[in-house]
Each structure stands twice: as structure tokens, then as C-alpha cells.
């Protein structure tokens, strides 16, 4: 009975994910597409939960749905209203696809169902056994963290480099512009910020600490911290001018730099890149993760701000010029 319900939920998830993906690709309204993308991310997180991958579910919910959603919405604000609706040609073609849609949705669902019910496909365990076998040689009890920071540390190192490069690319496009309208902030929003910010920081620290033995870790902690920073941004809090220079750049690059230093140190010490001394002490992994999560939070938030800090003496992001404010 429980198994049947599980299959039913999986089927529902697979169908709605496919339908959502199609809707968000087919719509000509970019705002609608963004909202659908956020919904898609949330459902995707549910799918990861169903697949027993809570690490991925956390990352998908916070980064895939939350932060990327904000990123897309702010990007949409920068576009002029004419560009928001991408003109689609050939509406008749879309209609025939609309007929095809149920078939498109049902096929992957059937495939999932087949995979779930066939014992052959389910029994392929992949690399799980060999990872767990070597777990005691590293400073962590959680297999996912072990893979991220030890077995496949090279991938993680390059991923953080990609994030850093993305912000460098954003900064090279144009100086920062004021991002939000000059309307006064609602007191309820300030209250929510006061309540949620400590909770977000605490949860982020908890996830970071938990990463060594249970689902959690640098990316999830960093993304939660970034959510807190975005709340601060939305409430018109700014980085003071004296911190938007070298301090901000060090914060952005810090995670990658420390990771790289450890990698290079291992290269000097043991002759292999990222081969941690003593199989990787837990304090070493934890310090890499702490630096990484701070950097990831800063990187995601600066990507949302979009544009480089123009001058050392101005706040980042700058205030919008408000004619009413100048009079008073």
C-alpha cells in the first residue's frame, strides 16, 4: 500500500515536472516563465527528496528555486517592458505541440515507473559501497561531504572558480545601478527581517556544522546566508563604501583562495593535488567549508546586485536618486 502511494507520488511528480518544464519553455511571457521556473525548482527539490538525496534537495530548493529565481526576477527588472514578452512565431505549431504534451508528460513518467518497479535497475548501487568503505580514512562521516571535498574535490574547486568567474563577468559588464525602487520599506518587512535574519544565520551555521556527518554543507549553508543577505538588500541595507573595495573582493575570492592554498599545500606536501595530509583532518575540511560558504553567500548576493562597485566612497549598491528626498 505504501509502495503504491510512493509510486503514485513519483508518477505525479514526473508528470508535473515535465509539464512545468514544457510550459516554462513554451511561454512567451518572461515573467511567467520565471515564476514557472521557481515552481519547477521546488518540485525538483521534492523529486530529490523522493530519490533519498536530501543534500541535493536542500541545494536545489535554496539555490535552484530561491536564489536563481531572484536572479532572474532582478534581471527581468533591468529589461525594458518591450523585451519582456519574447515574440513567438508560428502559433499553429504550438497548438499541435499542445496536443502532444500529454504524451510527452506520460512517457517519462512511465519510464520512471518502469525503473522503480524493475529490480534490475534498482539494484545497481553505483559507487556507494566503495565510498562508504573508504569513509574512515577521511575527516568526515557523511559520504556526500566526502565525495564533494575529498574524492571529487577537484570538481568542487573548479565549481567555486566558476562562481567567482561568473561574478567577475557580471562586474565587467557595467558599474552597479540602484536596483530597487525608492518607495519606503514597510515596517512589517523590517520586522520580518529582524526575526528571520538571526534564524537564517543560525540555520546556516547549523547546516555547515552538520555537513560533516549528515546532509548539509558549504553550498547549502552559503545559499541560506545569501538568502539573508538578499533580505537585507530588499530592506535597503547597504555595504558601506569603505567595505566595498578590497574587503568585498577578499570575501568573494576567499573561499576559492583557501581551497586552492590547501590544494597547493597538499601538492607540495604529498606530491598530489588535493591529497590532504593525514587523509584529510576534519578541521581542515571544516575550515575550507566555512570559507567556502561565506564566499558563496557573498558571490550569490553580488550576482543579484549585478554590476561592480563604482567608487570606494559610495555605498554598494548605491542609493537611487530621489528628488523628493533632496528637497527635504
Amino acid at each position: 500500500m505504501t509502495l503504491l502511494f510512493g509510486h503514485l507520488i513519483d508518477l505525479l511528480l514526473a508528470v508535473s515536472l515535465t509539464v512545468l518544464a514544457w510550459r516554462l519553455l513554451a511561454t512567451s511571457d518572461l515573467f511567467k516563465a520565471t515564476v514557472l521556473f521557481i515552481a519547477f525548482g521546488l518540485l525538483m527539490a521534492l523529486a530529490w527528496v523522493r530519490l533519498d538525496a536530501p543534500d541535493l534537495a536542500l541545494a536545489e530548493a535554496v539555490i535552484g528555486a530561491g536564489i536563481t529565481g531572484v536572479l532572474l526576477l532582478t534581471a527581468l527588472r533591468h529589461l525594458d517592458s518591450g523585451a519582456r514578452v519574447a515574440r513567438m512565431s508560428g502559433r499553429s505549431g504550438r497548438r499541435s505541440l499542445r496536443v502532444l504534451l500529454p504524451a510527452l508528460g506520460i512517457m517519462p513518467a512511465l519510464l520512471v515507473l518502469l525503473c522503480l518497479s524493475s529490480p534490475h535497475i534498482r539494484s545497481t548501487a553505483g559507487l556507494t559501497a566503495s565510498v562508504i568503505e573508504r569513509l574512515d580514512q577521511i575527516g568526515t562521516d557523511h559520504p556526500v561531504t566526502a565525495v564533494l571535498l575529498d574524492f571529487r574535490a577537484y570538481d568542487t574547486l573548479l565549481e567555486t572558480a566558476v562562481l567567482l568567474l561568473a561574478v567577475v563577468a557580471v562586474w565587467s559588464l557595467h558599474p552597479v545601478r540602484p536596483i530597487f525602487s525608492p518607495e519606503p520599506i514597510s515596517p512589517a518587512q523590517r520586522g520580518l527581517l529582524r526575526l528571520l535574519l538571526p534564524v537564517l544565520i543560525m540555520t546556516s551555521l547549523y547546516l555547515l556544522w552538520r555537513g560533516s556527518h549528515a546532509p548539509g554543507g558549504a553550498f547549502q549553508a552559503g545559499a541560506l546566508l545569501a538568502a539573508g543577505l538578499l533580505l537585507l538588500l530588499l530592506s535597503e541595507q547597504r555595504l558601506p563604501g569603505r567595505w566595498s573595495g578590497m574587503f568585498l573582493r577578499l570575501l568573494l575570492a576567499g573561499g576559492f583562495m583557501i581551497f586552492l592554498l590547501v590544494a597547493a599545500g597538499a601538492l607540495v606536501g604529498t606530491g598530489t593535488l588535493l591529497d590532504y595530509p593525514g587523509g584529510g583532518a576534519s578541521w581542515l575540511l571544516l575550515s575550507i567549508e566555512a570559507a567556502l560558504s561565506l564566499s558563496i553567500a557573498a558571490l550569490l548576493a553580488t550576482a543579484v546586485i549585478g554590476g561592480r562597485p563604482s567608487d570606494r566612497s559610495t555605498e554598494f549598491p548605491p542609493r537611487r536618486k530621489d528628488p523628493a528626498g533632496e528637497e527635504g
Partner: protein
Amino acid sequence: MFLRDATTCLLLLAAASFFLAGLVGLLRFPDVFCRLHALTKADNLGLGLVCIALIIQADSWHGAVRLLLTWFLVLVSGATIAHLIARKALQQGQTPWRNR
């Protein structure tokens, strides 16, 4: 044991009815303020009932506290976001719907 499961089922069914009512309201109500009203009812009461139903089934007190905390956070952020959307709609000059 039976009483516990039956209570959970009843609470979950009640929650489902709230979510359904909220969904119908969201789809059918005439303006953004009415829709927000329908939606927040579903969020607050529906989720609250689900949380109570699961607290009855919780193994430990910290599991129960975590569920309560989830409800509380959704209550606070849901109410604030509804307020912010309504505020923005008013600023944009949308007038609340009136039945004449």
C-alpha cells in the same frame, strides 16, 4: 494507537479541505486582495492542521518542536508577504473589488 491514527487522518482531511478551498479561491476570486485572503487562509490553517496531525505522530519532542517552528516561520513570512503584495497592488492603484 487507533485513536492517534484516526485523529491524524481527520486533521489531514480538514487540512486538505482548507488547501482545496484556498486553491479554488485563488483561481476564482475577482481581485488580488480576495485571492491573497484565500491563499493565506490555506497556508496558515491548512499547514497548521498538517503540522498538528504530524506532531501527534512525532517520535520525539524535538521533532514536534521542529514542526511547530516550521509552522511559525511560514505563518510569519506568509503574512508579511501577503501584506507586501497587497501594499504594492494598492500603490499601483488597484482598487479592491466591490459587489454592487
